[in-house]
């Protein structure tokens, strides 16, 4: 059982505040992804949980024990590093066995556990090699095997797939998901790749500027962004935003169109819709197509709505040419509203 509780954790480097008072609970065996652009503090948070960085304030609890003053080796964690950190002077076998040797596990037990994880990661035939003789993908597998063989309560992963090429990344992603689900460990996974986050996570913590903006399931994060940032960061292409003016109780004018919206006190809100949540139907937003990109299954049309760019993902059998006037009707249950002052969802 290894629930991770992070209480009011903050970290400053001199005058720069990397993390502002983070509170987060990660359930036992949960796969939590920390997602954000570079510099958002996600790696710092991971390193604080690992014990490679000391928090300026706050507490970290793993499995009911407070660990924020303990060295990494006493936290019951294992880690996969961005550059793998597979020791070049040790064979693959010794790399995987490293942690077990440190714990003085008896040799037969080491042999058994190393060969089992090596088999799991499909690297049995590489055990006698050195890392200089391995490809990036193989090194990655060794790094994961080294973590798994510890049978840790918690596995921490710092952008583990970012150094692989696209095809290999896809393959490893699926494999990691399967292996980690079977291992029944709690996983914290740092990435800046939203597709990776969506596909792997039980829950995603979207981070921005040293804060967690939203921590929810991938679908929830995608469908109901808690803040404008989440909507604009997640989804490719991202959400469209159009300023909205109050014209009556629960009535909002969006680019010349009057829509039902929240009964809010504000005079101005921001209307938001995902590109795939519009249909070409009369009586919608007036749009002029500017760029048309056929993507096979869909066609991505970048239009002008009210003088601002607006992206729509439309059926590919729809014939649209640059310069065409379109009427794009938002699906009413998919419309979201944000307060332009606080940037939070209304």
């Amino acid at each position, binding site marked *: 059982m290894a629930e991770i509780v992070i209480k009011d954790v903050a970290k400053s480097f001199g005058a720069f505040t990397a993390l502002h008072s983070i509170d987060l609970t990660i359930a036992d065996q949960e796969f939590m992804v920390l997602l954000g652009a570079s510099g958002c503090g996600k790696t710092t948070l991971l390193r604080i949980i*690992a*014990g*490679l960085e000391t928090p300026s304030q706050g507490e970290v609890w793993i499995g009911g024990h407070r660990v924020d003053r303990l*060295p*990494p*080796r006493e936290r019951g*964690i*294992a*880690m996969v*590093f*961005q*550059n793998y*950190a597979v*020791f*070049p*002077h*040790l064979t693959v076998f010794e790399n995987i066995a*490293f*942690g077990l040797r*440190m*714990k003085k596990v008896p040799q037969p037990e080491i042999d058994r556990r190393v060969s089992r994880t090596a088999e799991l990661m499909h690297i049995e035939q590489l055990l006698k*090699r*050195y*890392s*200089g*003789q391995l490809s990036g993908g193989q090194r990655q597998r060794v790094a994961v095997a*080294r973590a798994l063989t*510890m049978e840790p309560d918690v596995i921490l992963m710092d952008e583990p797939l970012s150094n692989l090429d696209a095809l290999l990344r896809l393959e490893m992603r699926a494999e990691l998901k399967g292996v980690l689900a079977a291992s029944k460990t709690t996983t914290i996974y740092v990435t800046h790749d939203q597709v990776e986050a969506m596909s792997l996570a039980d829950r995603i913590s979207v981070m921005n500027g040293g804060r967690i903006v939203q921590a929810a399931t991938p679908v929830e994060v995608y469908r109901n962004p808690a803040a404008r940032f989440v909507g604009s960061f997640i989804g490719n292409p991202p959400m469209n935003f159009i300023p909205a003016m109050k014209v009556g109780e629960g009535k909002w004018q969006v680019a010349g169109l009057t829509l039902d919206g929240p009964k809010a006190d504000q005079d101005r809100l921001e209307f938001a819709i995902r590109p795939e949540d519009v249909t070409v139907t009369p009586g919608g937003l007036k749009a002029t197509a500017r760029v048309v990109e056929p993507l096979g299954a869909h066609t991505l049309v970048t239009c002008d709505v009210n003088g601002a760019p607006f992206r729509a993902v439309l059926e590919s059998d729809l014939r649209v040419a640059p310069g065409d006037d379109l009427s794009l009707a938002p699906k009413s249950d998919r419309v979201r509203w944000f307060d332009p002052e606080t940037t939070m969802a209304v």
Partner: protein
Amino acid sequence: MPQRALPYLLLLPATLFLLVFFLYPFLQIAILAFSSPEGFTLKPFQTMTTHWKFGTTLWNTILLTAIIVPIQLVMALAMATIVTKLKTGRNAILYIFTIPLGLSDLAAGIIWLAIFEQSGFLNSVLVGLGIVERPVLFLGYQNLWVIFVAVILAEVWRATAIVMVILVSGMGLIPKEYYEAAEVFGAGPWKRFLKVTLPMLRPSLQTALILRTIAAFEVFAVVVALGGTTLPVLMGETFNWQFALNDRNVAAAYALVILAISIASTLFFLRVLRTPKGATI
């Protein structure tokens, strides 16, 4: 001019220099060691090995090296570890540590002579404190071990920094992630040193040990300054045969002995500290 010839052309001056000023004298020495007015002979070697001083000389040189180099290695590792960990003032400390490197070995020997000789600093302090009544003759032939210790001290003081400098630059090449990985997987500071620093420092250790060991076999000026001929070493005997006994052939034979043990030790370190194929950073 063909592009392929250019690198060889650029290397030509250095190659010529080495041929003229290194290989040629070396061949001369080699020939000298095996020649007499009658032609080829092993007589210089016979003279050398049957001389009563030869055994002592060889033994002293090897013993000094066997004591000095390990001490320097341990000290340099400790110093380099500390220097690498420093966040501020690192360069200042490095410069201070390397000051003795700027001195010639003879100057270093004289400095330590000034400490140990009968009217030296050590005696002044001991007399001043009333520990001894009159100055002691430390560096006499009755106290051979004191000369030995003094030479070791002087050599350690003088030449540890060169080992440290090589190790500091080697340690700087080890990526931080390896230490973090070792830490996460259960290695404390000492284990990290043994399991990460030392093995990954192998190429630097190799260079430093080869350089230092060869230099230790050639120890001369420090020994002469502190012990005169009381503590004979190989280099001192070479000098002796060349200039005092005027036998260039025996001197050449000595030079070849030094060369032989230098090559042997170099091969030893190359072998022992080699990096397995594919195991480089």
